[in-house]
């Protein structure tokens, strides 16, 4: 069967190749097979190769199509829904050589074909809205979609032999007219598939490029910036690239010819990039072609080429060149392996082996934008060639050649091109706009010398012995009872680890990776003495503005502990490096010896992997258990009466319609919809239908899927139907009287629907589930809401959701839950579905589209971010640490599959994780402790990527050093996580006591061990001076407070947030930032671009800091409050709010008007700046100084006394009493 798939691929490939040189990339494998021996140039344009491919086709076609669902082919095939139509497609392809880029060609043919076959049989002719209740039987029988394997299952492809000749002819024609390449095709695709648009960018993507931008939203914009930078840099080696790039990038029609050319010419250098880029670009290409082709090779003996490709591929990597080729080779290999082994088995050949992860290639990450862009245009084909032949391709001059290059045949393939690629990485950094804080370019550039050998390293560490000034400051004893102004003027930064300046420069950003103790105690005994928790806070998938992406044949890892090479390893000599986690001495692979930056051997320590502590590798097939899945999104919508009342459906549909094209994904993206009340409704969206069809399953005790192929459909092909559905959905249920909710069965159906592929299930629920499996009872007693003694029912009531979540996790399905409920809905139970499948949870208490506009606005904003944010599929994360340290507890949403492996069905850029660690063996024999988090995921464009973060911290043996390095914010967050666990497993009051005891322990430990001053009062090191305040703030949070009336669901949701929010966000929620705005000045202001961002001082969260004649801004993370005092100066009110005086400020003002006054500009600049680095946009509420303010604003003033909680002074008194006991 594979054979048949191959056919397609090969055919298509050949066709494509002709016209576009560059365009071909998607068909990497294809080329190999087809033209194994051919020289690239010839193969490319030459007609003969194609013919060869064709010849093979018939042979393949012959085999039964349905055979191997599991294999890669199958996988590929399924995306190809239209296989049966292939002939037509191919023809079209001929017409539109770039078809892979352009969605249009495919869709068109398909649609025409579809109606005839599959759907004709459909029993349910009735139009969708009619809600015809169908019995199961008819559906099951569905002939066309019968294939149960559905997703991966083969489709019926009936190649008609007769057509082949025609195809060939067409191909030939195309070949003759390469220029035919339709530009237009690209253009439409551009927004969606950024890659396409920036064909030449490749270099950037390749190594490095910056990639990661948060870009989901701005695919177009970002890439340009990014690309721009790298290009310039290139100038040295491959100057040409710039030229090439731009045209390509533009995606403008005129450039069409150009890109092709580039593809050929440039490809050589960029081989790697192109490779992957291409793959994603062409939806078909990746799955169908690559997978297919190879499979065919395996399956069919007939085809000589098939065999060859794999071998050739493998051989190539060996050389240094390998790097470039390497990637290609791998891809080839992967496919090959897949063929033989089948998807189910992990890639056997993988060197990486075990652990990790099955992973993947990546694509460009951020929203697909940047990196991938790389070379999209380019020619995939050439790459494969190279790999085969080792360099046959031209390209010594890669970039510069621009179009001219075509002619050039075999340049030195290898090195030059590589260099360019690599250079980009660093260069890009340099160029990077100042805004990129984390990875300052400067640091990169300067950091030319890592640590070539041990002696140097130790020398570098020498600085440790001396006590830096920072440390002195951190250790200054602070008497909390006397000092009242503890807050720093600006929000607290993470303490800098006390390592040598060289290491500091490359160390991981504290926003990504943070340790509670930035100096690791040498032994567990010392840690116990310090009475501080040791743990890590990770935000591994956060949106980055810059990220080096490395494509390399071999990913260098330690042979025993599988650590990825990182800046903190030591090079013993030219050929050996010592792992910084397990201390094993490893060989440096040949390929790694080549330094692309300087084009010389023997400088492995200058490779990008060793220069950056956050890098992303493009993974080979070794990291895949199966072909990378397509992006798949299933929306499960509650349409019961309650949901209709709340009115969310309309806003959801609107938001999705608006963002339909921004959903991360590629041509393979699949979507599906499922609604439920007391029954479950499926929607047949198979393209070719005139209207969506609704299929109702009323048997909720034994849920079945009525049709396998048409419920999850390709977004591209069925876009119109999806739009139809979204437009009509809100009205369809507007008259619903059904009050029951069968959430459990709906989730089971979703699980069944998604399990062939994996993907993301988004559940909207508005009430307690009452029917079928997973039905829940109300457990909340409203009278107990303010019970100070204890809170019951914080844990789940049933294990149904947990089990289902684990099943989902096993099938790579992540479930995200949106709970929009005005009543108790038992979030404690429902949340399990997301907690263990690595989903996220959103909760909108009292949601109502009319009565609660604030929630509605938040819902809309969250939804927009949610739909467009980056996503990684089938991910796993492994956290490794230096020998002697071990992880003993994990916090966050995931399933811990083995001792250090987290299984993340989906990974999103907004969730963070925490782990607690213990010191099992003394760390005395090393001066540094390192932690590495490796996240392996499939990008939304079907690439496997590994993102690696490495953090390096000093090991200390003095208690004072431990305190000096304590990170009070990280400690607070970790303690919060521990307290949440404690309150679920034990009781809330236990958890609260434990938090108070943490403060007591710290103060007494510090008093008895470190401070020699016999002061009375509460003395803590300056680094921890905010600790009691933060703990008090924690105790007043919804999650942990007692006394005040708190609804159970809100409490549980707050607990979920503690577990998943990144540190910065969490700290703002726990201890909001308060600024005074009416007297802001430009003193100390930031100047960003052309705007001046004032930096007002932080104020303590106490009502005494508020004054009636002022205006204050409180930043609570997801909401801003602007408090206007009664006597606030009218100029401020007029200039900023646009109201003449205090009395005229409307009561529910929730935006700041854009006025042209300097004050307004300053305030808005500040707000924008604060907003800038958070994922979900915050709403702003203008709060007037009246009684209503107390409810909202004053509850955040944590230093003040409330009805049920003590003030900060009282809290300190309480601590002191505890200590003196």
């Amino acid at each position, binding site marked *: 069967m594979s054979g048949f798939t191959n056919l397609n691929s090969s055919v298509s490939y050949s066709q494509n190749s002709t016209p576009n040189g560059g365009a071909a990339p998607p068909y990497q494998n294809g080329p190999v097979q087809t033209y194994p021996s051919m020289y690239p140039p010839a193969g490319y344009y030459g007609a003969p190769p194609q013919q060869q491919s064709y010849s093979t086709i018939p042979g393949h076609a012959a085999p039964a199509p349905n055979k191997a669902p599991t294999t890669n082919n199958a996988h590929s095939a399924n995306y190809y829904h239209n296989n049966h139509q292939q002939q037509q497609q191919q023809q079209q392809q001929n017409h539109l050589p770039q078809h892979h880029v352009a969605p249009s060609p495919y869709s068109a043919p398909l649609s025409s074909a579809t109606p005839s076959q599959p759907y004709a049989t459909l029993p349910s002719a009735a139009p969708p809205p009619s809600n015809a209740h169908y019995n199961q039987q008819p559906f099951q029988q569905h002939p066309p979609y019968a294939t149960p394997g559905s997703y991966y299952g083969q489709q019926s492809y009936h190649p008609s032999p007769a057509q082949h000749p025609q195809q060939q002819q067409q191909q030939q024609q195309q070949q003759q007219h390469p220029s035919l390449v339709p530009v237009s095709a690209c253009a439409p695709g551009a927004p969606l598939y950024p890659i396409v648009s920036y064909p030449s960018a490749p270099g950037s993507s390749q190594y490095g490029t910056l990639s990661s931008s948060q870009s989901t939203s701005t695919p177009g914009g970002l890439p340009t910036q990014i690309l721009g930078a790298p290009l310039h840099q290139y100038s040295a080696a491959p100057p040409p690239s710039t030229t090439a790039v731009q045209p390509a990038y533009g995606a403008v029609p005129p450039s069409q010819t150009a890109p092709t050319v580039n593809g050929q010419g440039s490809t050589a250098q960029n081989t790697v990039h192109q490779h992957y880029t291409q793959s994603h670009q062409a939806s078909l290409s990746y799955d169908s072609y690559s997978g297919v082709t190879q499979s065919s090779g395996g399956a069919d003996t007939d085809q000589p080429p098939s065999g060859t490709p794999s071998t050739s591929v493998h051989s190539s990597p060996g050389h240094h060149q390998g790097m470039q080729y390497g990637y290609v080779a791998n891809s080839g290999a992967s496919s090959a392996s897949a063929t033989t082994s089948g998807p189910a088995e992990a890639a056997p050949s993988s060197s990486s082996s075990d652990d990790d992860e099955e992973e993947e290639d990546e694509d460009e990450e951020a929203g697909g934008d940047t990196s991938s862009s790389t070379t999209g245009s380019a020619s995939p084909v050439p790459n494969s060639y190279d790999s085969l032949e080792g360099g046959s391709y031209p390209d010594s001059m890669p970039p510069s050649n621009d179009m001219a290059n075509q002619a050039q045949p075999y340049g030195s393939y290898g090195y030059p091109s590589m260099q360019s690629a690599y250079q980009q990485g660093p260069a890009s950094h340099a160029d990077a706009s100042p805004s990129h804080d984390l990875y300052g370019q400067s640091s990169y550039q300067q950091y030319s010398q890592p640590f070539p050998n041990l002696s140097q390293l130790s020398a570098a560490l020498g600085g440790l012995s001396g006590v830096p000034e920072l440390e002195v400051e951190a250790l200054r004893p602070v008497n909390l009872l006397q000092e009242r102004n503890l807050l720093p003027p600006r929000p607290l930064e993470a303490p800098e680890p006390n390592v040598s300046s060289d290491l500091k420069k490359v160390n991981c950003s504290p926003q990504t990776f943070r340790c509670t103790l930035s100096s690791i105690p040498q032994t567990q005994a010392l840690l116990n003495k310090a009475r501080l928790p040791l743990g890590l806070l990770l935000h591994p998938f956060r949106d980055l503005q810059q990220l080096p992406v490395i494509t390399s044949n071999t990913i260098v890892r330690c042979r025993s502990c599988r650590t990825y090479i990182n800046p903190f390893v030591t090079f013993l000599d030219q050929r050996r490096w010592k792992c910084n986690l397990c201390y094993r001495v490893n060989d440096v692979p040949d390929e790694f010896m080549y330094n692309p930056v300087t084009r010389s051997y023997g400088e492995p320590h200058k490779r990008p992997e060793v220069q950056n502590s956050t890098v992303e590798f493009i993974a080979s097939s070794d990291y895949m258990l199966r072909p990378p899945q397509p992006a798949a999104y299933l929306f499960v919508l509650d349409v019961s009466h309650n949901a209709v009342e709340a009115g969310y459906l309309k806003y959801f549909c609107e938001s999705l319609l608006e963002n339909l094209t921004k959903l991360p994904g590629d041509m393979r993206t699949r979507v599906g919809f499922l609604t439920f009340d007391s029954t479950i409704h499926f929607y047949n969206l198979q393209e070719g239908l005139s209207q969506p069809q609704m299929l109702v399953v009323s048997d909720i005790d034994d849920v079945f899927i009525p049709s396998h192929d048409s419920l999850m459909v390709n977004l591209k092909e069925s876009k119109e139907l999806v739009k139809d559905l979204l437009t009509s959905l809100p009205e369809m249920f507007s008259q619903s009287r059904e009050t029951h909710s069968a959430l459990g069965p709906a989730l089971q159906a979703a699980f069944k629907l998604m399990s062939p592929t994996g993907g993301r299930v988004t559940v909207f629920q508005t009430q307690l589930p009452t029917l079928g499996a997973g039905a829940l009872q109300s457990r909340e007693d409203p009278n107990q809401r303010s019970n100070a003694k204890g809170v019951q029912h914080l*844990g789940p009531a049933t*294990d149904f959701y947990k089990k289902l979540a684990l099943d989902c996790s096993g099938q790579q399905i992540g479930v995200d839950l949106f709970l929009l409920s005005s009543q108790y809905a038992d979030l*404690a139970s429902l949340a*399990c579905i997301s907690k263990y499948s690595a989903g996220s949870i959103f909760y909108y208490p009292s949601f109502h589209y009319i009565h609660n506009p604030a929630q509605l606005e938040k819902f809309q904003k969250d939804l927009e971010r949610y739909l467009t944010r980056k996503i990684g599929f089938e991910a796993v994360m492994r956290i490794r640490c230096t020998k002697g340290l071990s992880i003993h*507890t994990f916090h966050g949403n995931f399933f*811990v599959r*083995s001792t250090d492996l987290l299984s993340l069905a989906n990974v999103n850029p907004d969730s963070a994780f925490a782990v607690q660690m213990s010191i099992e063996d003394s760390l005395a024999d090393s001066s540094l402790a390192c932690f590495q988090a490796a996240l392996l995921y499939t990008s939304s464009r079907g690439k496997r990527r590994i993102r690696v973060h490495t953090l390096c911290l000093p090991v200390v043996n003095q208690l004072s050093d431990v305190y000096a390095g304590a990170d009070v914010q990280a400690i607070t967050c970790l303690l919060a996580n521990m307290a949440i666990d404690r309150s679920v497993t034990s009781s809330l009051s236990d958890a609260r006591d434990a938090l108070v005891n943490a403060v007591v322990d710290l103060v007494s430990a510090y008093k008895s061990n470190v401070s020699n001053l016999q002061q009375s009062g509460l003395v803590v090191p300056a680094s921890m001076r905010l600790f009691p305040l933060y703990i008090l703030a924690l105790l007043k949070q919804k999650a942990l407070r007692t006394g005040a009336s708190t609804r159970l669901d809100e409490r549980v949701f707050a607990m979920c947030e503690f577990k998943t929010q990144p540190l910065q966000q969490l700290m703002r929620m726990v201890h909001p930032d308060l600024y005074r705005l009416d007297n802001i000045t430009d003193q100390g202001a930031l100047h960003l671009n052309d705007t001046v961002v004032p930096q007002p001082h932080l104020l303590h969260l106490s009502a005494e800091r508020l004054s009636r004649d002022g205006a204050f801004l409180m930043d609570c993370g997801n909401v801003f409050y602007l408090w206007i005092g009664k006597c606030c100066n009218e100029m401020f009110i007029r200039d900023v709010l646009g109201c003449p005086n205090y009395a005229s400020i409307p009561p529910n003002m929730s935006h700041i008007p854009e006025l042209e006054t300097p004050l307004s500009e300053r305030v808005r600049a500040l707000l924008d700046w604060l907003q800038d680095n958070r994922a979900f946009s915050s709403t702003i509420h203008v709060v007037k100084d009246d009684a209503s303010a107390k409810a909202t604003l004053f509850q955040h003033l944590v230093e003040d006394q409330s009805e049920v909680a003590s003030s900060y002074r009282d809290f300190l008194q309480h601590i002191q009493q505890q200590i003196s006991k």
Partner: protein
Amino acid sequence: MEAAVFILSLVDCCALIFLSVYFIITLSDLECDYINARACCSKLNKWVIPEMIGQCLSTMLMLISMHWFIFLLNLPVAAWDIYRYVKVPMGNMGVFDPTEIHNRGQLKSHMKEAMIKLGYHLLCFFIYLYSMILALIND
């Protein structure tokens, strides 16, 4: 009669010893990553109730046959088994929960518990063996 009681206890004890060994092996497999948490927990949870019954059985036997010392020796273990089973939170999938087992050192404490039980059952085994022989001789 007495001999029959001890023979029965002996058999029961052997079964419990095997069960303890099985627990230890499975847990150490999990520790070494040979199996995943879910498989491990579903395997172990199956045997929690049989273990509890086995333990209660020998306790009851001793009570009925009025061997007070051995009864008192058995009682705390039986009580612990029952307590542990009853105390499982509603949302958990059994005594061994795959989502919790890697947290808070649970794996280690389960391991420790299985080890202690193994030692205890071995001790019981020899006591039963001795008592049985004694009973047979007395007969």
